[in-house]
């Protein structure tokens, strides 16, 4: 035991002699009330500089706060925003969303992406958005009020993207992995949507279509059909409500995430999509027999799905950007695609388990199974 004390004291003496007597780590400690948690991070190019805007939370009792800072590089801008007023420090460890401005996206987001990948605090599964038609700073400021912040709105958007018009929220990891694999990637766009609440017009982030990146530069935007097709091809979780116009009426079907099966034969890709769903509502369909209606619903769903997939494939063909990673996936199957147009098969299984009589058909026949 004495020897151990001797060892310890020797090491301590050496430690002091070597000049390492400052407890460097102690200065790293920070009290919880001295930090502000960044929830949303917006980045845009402004006058050749990076403009970083953050929406922070410092406890539930305080209102969300917004801060901006500029820097020649992205990391400089982030460093400039670290020290907030009242001696508080911004922490990026809880960042939930990153919003990239359109201008920056067009000029390339290498720096931002690199920072996130190398960051010791940000998570890679942070949601990634492109802000369309408005700068991130404007959107963050306009959609953050006393009780609600853009972070809450975007969290709500993530939960309800299916019912808010479809789409899929990619994370930074999805984006970076996609870029690595296919050289291109997709990002969900958002725009500022004006809504009248309590007599005032407020701006909320609403989902647009996907932005298509060629490398780290924004190439363009997908149409709605292309976006839906991309979601199917990427096998992303996506439930959606699809209104179908049948015989002057409207049948709304609630679709589950389609199942995709890819196979390849002689360099040709065969895509089989199987979609399941329920009829959510039927209105104004009077003159159609039940079995015929069923058949038409199936057919319409199939045709819609086919249209989506075709649109996406056409976009891949025209842009030469394989955002769905079809070639990579064919490679996994041991095939090399030869550029022949893929074969597409769609199968729809629509259940009729709900009471869908609205209004009751004139002939009085119910569609109830």
């Amino acid at each position, binding site marked *: 035991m004495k*020897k*151990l004390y*001797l*060892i*310890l004291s*020797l*090491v*301590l003496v*050496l*430690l002091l002699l*070597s000049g*390492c007597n*400052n*407890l*460097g*780590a102690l200065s*790293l400690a920070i009290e919880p009330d001295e930090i502000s948690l960044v929830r949303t991070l917006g980045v845009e190019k402004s006058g050749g500089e990076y403009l970083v805007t953050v929406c922070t939370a410092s406890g539930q009792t305080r209102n969300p706060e917004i801060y901006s800072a500029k820097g020649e590089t992205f990391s400089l801008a982030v460093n400039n925003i670290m020290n907030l007023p009242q001696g508080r420090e911004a922490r990026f*460890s809880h960042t939930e969303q990153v919003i990239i401005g359109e201008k920056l996206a067009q000029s390339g987001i290498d720096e931002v992406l*690199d920072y996130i*990948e*190398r960051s*010791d*605090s940000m*998570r*890679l*599964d942070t949601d990634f958005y492109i802000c369309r038609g408005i700068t991130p700073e404007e959107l963050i400021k306009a959609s953050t009020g006393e009780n609600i912040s853009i972070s809450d709105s975007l969290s709500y958007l993530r939960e309800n993207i299916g019912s808010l018009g479809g789409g899929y929220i990619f994370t930074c*990891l999805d984006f*970076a*992995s*996609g*870029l*690595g*694999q296919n050289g291109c990637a997709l990002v969900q766009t958002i725009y500022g949507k004006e809504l009248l609440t309590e007599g005032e017009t407020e701006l909320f982030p609403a989902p647009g279509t996907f932005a298509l990146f060629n490398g780290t530069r924004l190439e363009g935007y997908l149409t709605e059909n292309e976006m839906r097709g991309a979601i199917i091809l990427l096998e992303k979780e996506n439930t959606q409500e699809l209104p179908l116009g049948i015989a002057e009426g409207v049948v709304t079907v609630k679709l589950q995430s389609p199942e995709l099966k890819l196979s390849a034969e002689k360099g040709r890709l065969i895509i089989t999509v199987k979609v399941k769903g329920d009829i959510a509502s039927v209105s104004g369909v009077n003159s159609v027999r039940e079995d015929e209606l069923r058949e038409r619903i199936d057919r319409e769903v199939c045709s819609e799905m086919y249209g989506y997939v075709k649109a996406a494939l056409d976009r891949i063909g025209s842009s030469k950007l394989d955002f769905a*990673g079809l070639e*990579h*996936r064919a*490679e*996994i199957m*041991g095939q090399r695609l030869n550029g022949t147009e893929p074969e597409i098969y769609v199968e729809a299984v629509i259940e009729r388990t709900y009471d869908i009589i609205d209004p009751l058909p004139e002939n009085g026949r119910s569609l109830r199974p």
Partner: protein
Amino acid sequence: MKGENITARQLAVTVFISLLSPFIRILPRSAVNIAQNAAWLSVIPATVAGFIYLRAISGRTAKSLSSRIKYALGNFGGKIFLSIIFLWLLFYGGFVARSAAERLVSTVYQRGGVSVFLWVMAAASALAGGGSLKGLVRTGEVFSVIIGVLLIIVIFASVMNVELENLLPVKVEDTGKILLGSLPILDVIGAGLYFLFLGGSVRSRDNLGKEIGKKFLSTMAAIFGVMVVTVGFCHYSLIPNFQNGFFTVIRNITIFGVVERIEALIIATWILTDFMLLSSVIMICRKILGSIFRSGESPVLAAAFGAVTAAVGSLFPNAFVLESFSDLYVPVINMTLTYILIPAVMVAGWIKGQVKGEKYE
């Protein structure tokens, strides 16, 4: 320390719990740099080669490597060779301590200085390295339970994030890359050889080779798991960008939304492996010095070794220099020693034994 009987199993556990430290330092980055998305398969040839190597070199009965070297090269030659290994191990210890400190700073202690971590680490390891060997190996046993449980939980939790598309495709043409990718893994496995300097304390009836083989296989199974979840987590091109691939994967684990970002916890737990490695290196240095000078095993020397390792660790000016050492110099010297020089000496010893008609194990 004389007559301190430990079991072969205890030594084997200590070897591999210590080696988890360099494994996580270099993997998956080094392997991915060579074998890209097929890097996870590099574990397999490394396991096969490592198994054969370790079984062959650790022998059937335990015997101290120092005595074998001295037998092979003669007393004077042996002492010179042992001194070289001793100096290298002190440097290696410094490198290990600095790497551990650097990992802490680059992952969870943002903007922190490395020196405090380096010195605390060295002091704690000197304390353990200066204690009894049985205390150290028993500590290894307890740590192996903690780390084993933690690794299983983390690997299972990360399996959800694995995308097959990141692991595949692997083609026949990739075989060369896969084999080359196993080199960094073999480098770490080779470091296991240094622990045979402690072999003299293992009970003579134990089969050291068998125990090392068993523990090696279970360690490699864990490493395989780590490689699969890390490479499968994202496209391989991203991995070199991460501070540490495995910890980045852990950062993204959320367990039922209750526990988040457990990487600080895991990184802190990983300190246990660094602690074991550094303590073992100090203990090995004591043993080697003991066989160079008869009374060189004194525990008090551990403090000096600890201080030297910390001082060596402070010599690296920055993380980039450390990385270049990690990628080039350390593996080259390690592999030269463990795969060429020491085995050559052992072969020489075996031949000498055959000629003289003595038993050399």
